[in-house]
């Protein structure tokens, strides 16, 4: 009995009845899709929608970009134009179309994040799985190493490395990967260690499965949500770090990326001159994409943790949102309190402390 509060105490049948279960196969495929959709946390859907939107934008972008992003206009007439019908997002100080730059620059920025995410997460999975599964001295050393990496701030190291290892976006992705794996490795290792001691692993060992097979077939599938969350945070970190480094002028700032745009905008005093059309689009895309990643991760949390899922569903009785601090509501009282327009005007279990001291009755009379 751990779950007394969200679930009815000790009544497993009632508790099971409350679980949202998907309609079984007798329903049509559309109904099942609809049910799945309805049961997916809102944050997950919103996050996924944002990410899909920007990924599509970066794929389609280069084909629909209205101008050549590098077509510098030599005359000063086309420079620093505010948004208009011809240039929907205006132009920058060299007369380049901001919309076209955004459409073309979003792709490489997101791609850099994804590449870093894939490399760093793969590395975390390998290190975390091996260290967690085998344990022993190797594990001690690896976990010490990951912990050290965690507390040493990454950015100074990144600045130094990127500044001196000259190179393009791929180089930056590699450098970011080198510093991006320890967090994931740590959580994957911890989870692997707890899984390793469970019965199904012992059973697999008894049946003579090889260690590699146990790791890949028995343990890895159970790590999916942790790996996903680790991947999401690595992508978030990589995009933020790469954009930040580019803003400092490190890396390939001449390639068309959102970071490069921000570097140029800042360099050409777009902020001070209030050329919002120039600096807002790249910055907002990064922020909203990051928000999508964060929301997606919260959504995954909710899917993985039923307590969060139940709690995040509005616990409403009638029109009233019931809080965990409220005593069990009584239907008769709820109904009695419904006002003229069907709204509950005041509830018997409303916290009255402080609000209405004179009305505060003691159980046995006036307090």
């Amino acid at each position, binding site marked *: *009995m751990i779950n007394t509060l969200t679930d009815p105490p000790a*009544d497993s*049948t009632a508790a099971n*009845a*409350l679980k949202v279960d998907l309609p079984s196969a007798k329903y049509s495929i559309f109904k099942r899709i609809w049910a799945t959709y309805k049961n997916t946390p809102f944050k997950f859907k919103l996050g996924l929608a944002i990410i899909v939107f920007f990924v599509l934008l970066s794929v389609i972008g280069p084909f629909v970009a209205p101008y050549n992003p590098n077509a510098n206009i030599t005359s000063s007439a086309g420079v620093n134009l505010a948004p208009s019908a011809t240039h929907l997002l205006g132009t920058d100080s060299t007369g380049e179309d901001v919309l076209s730059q955004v459409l073309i620059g979003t792709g490489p920025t997101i791609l850099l994040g994804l590449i870093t995410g894939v490399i760093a997460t793969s590395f975390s999975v390998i290190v975390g799985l091996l260290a967690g599964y085998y344990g022993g001295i190797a594990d001690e050393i690896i976990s010490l190493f990951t912990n050290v990496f965690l507390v040493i701030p990454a950015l100074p190291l990144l600045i130094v490395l990127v500044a001196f290892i000259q190179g393009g976006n791929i180089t930056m992705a590699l450098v970011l990967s080198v510093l991006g794996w320890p967090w994931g490795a740590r959580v994957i290792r911890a989870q692997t260690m707890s899984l390793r001691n469970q019965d199904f692993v012992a059973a697999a060992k008894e049946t003579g499965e090889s260690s590699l097979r146990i790791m890949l077939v028995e343990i890895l599938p159970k790590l999916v949500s942790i790996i996903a969350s680790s991947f999401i945070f690595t992508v978030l970190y990589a995009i933020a770090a790469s954009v930040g480094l580019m803003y400092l002028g490190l890396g390939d700032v001449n390639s068309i990326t959102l970071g490069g745009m921000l570097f140029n905008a800042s360099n050409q005093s777009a902020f001070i001159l209030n050329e919002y059309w120039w600096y807002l689009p790249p910055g907002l895309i990064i922020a909203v994409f990051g928000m999508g990643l964060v929301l997606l991760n919260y959504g995954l949390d909710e899917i993985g943790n039923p307590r969060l899922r139940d709690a995040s569903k509005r616990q409403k009785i009638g029109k009233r949102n*019931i809080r965990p601090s409220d005593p*069990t509501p*009584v239907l008769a009282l709820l109904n009695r309190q419904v006002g003229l327009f069907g709204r509950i005007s005041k509830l018997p279990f409303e916290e009255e402390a402080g609000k209405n001291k004179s009305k505060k009755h003691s*159980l*046995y009379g006036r307090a």
Partner: protein
Amino acid sequence: MKRLFSPKKSENLLLDLSGSSGPDLDKPVLSVEDFSIVYRSAHGDVKAVDHVSLELARSEVLGLAGESGSGKSTLAYGACRLLRSPALITGGKVTYAGRRAPREGIDITSLNAHELRQLRWKEISIVFQSAMNSLNPVITVGAQLDDAIKAHMPLDKHDRHERAGTLMDLAGIPRQRLRSYPHELSGGMRQRVMIAMALAADPDIVIMDEPTTALDVVVQREILTQIIEIKEQLGFAIIFITHDLSLLLELSDRIAIMYGGKLLEIAPTKNLQHKAAHPYTEGLLASFPSLTGPKKALAGIPGSPPDLRSLPPGCPFFPRCRHAGAACRSVDMLLKNVSKTLEEVHLSACPFHPGPGADKRWRAPDMIEDVIRIGGGEKTQSDPGYIDSLETLEKGSI
């Protein structure tokens, strides 16, 4: 509500019940009338407690038994309004009439949060199933005990500490354990702390929710013995919730059997044990070995508990009942007194049972369907007329 009882002057644990000016001592300390609780969900209401009526006498040990999912815990927690959303009390009344309550009693279902806080622990306290989970792991047991005393008793720090010490003595724990954290205590010790905690504000009723299930048999026995000793000293009433009917047979004065959110049978322990008047109770009794009685074959009850979301009308047990017939689908599930003596009240929801303890032939439910209509009406009350009509019908038909 008028104050009819002045707070005790001394906080001595040994209470003098005769001197109190509380309500009528013959009246039950807690009465639950026609009480219903549902869990709201998108798929409809789960009727966890369905029209249950129950009374708890002063200083009585009432056993509440049933399989998991029968609604026994929901009933007890719901009576204290401790269930969290999506639980909803859809009907009925819970009247508390402890020593400090006014003569007419307090209807718990009409209290607001502030009033409930005064009622909780001071009047009704709970010993939770798992002491490990119900103790805050990061503060000392002394501080948690102090919290409970402080919330309900106007004592200064020194007196509170003294009281905490007295409670520890009472529960059989060394006083220096007040400074311990829960994880530093053994399982049995933790449960004793929970018992001391339950007595902190000197309640009239203690609800014990499977308090010994997690413990080994020896510790379990020690603690149960201690509970009964303390109860004899302090005179509170106990609602003892468990799925272990054999435990209740030794411990309780009366036993109530729940199934599918409904009350099936309530009787004094002796009656229930030897003269069960409901096939479900008989099934439960046959499913564990008796410690003292003769050897007999053990029999479980086939089938599984019902789905409370879509409970068919009539008796919830009928799909698993070997005596079931067509009439069981329309039985009204009202409790009727089946006792043969006037002193005892033995209530059962099965109108077809041949009667307590009798080895009479079982009346086939489909044959006597009209009896239900004759007998239906009064609930939980002794109805000699009903018994008579049954008797005559039986005599006449056989």
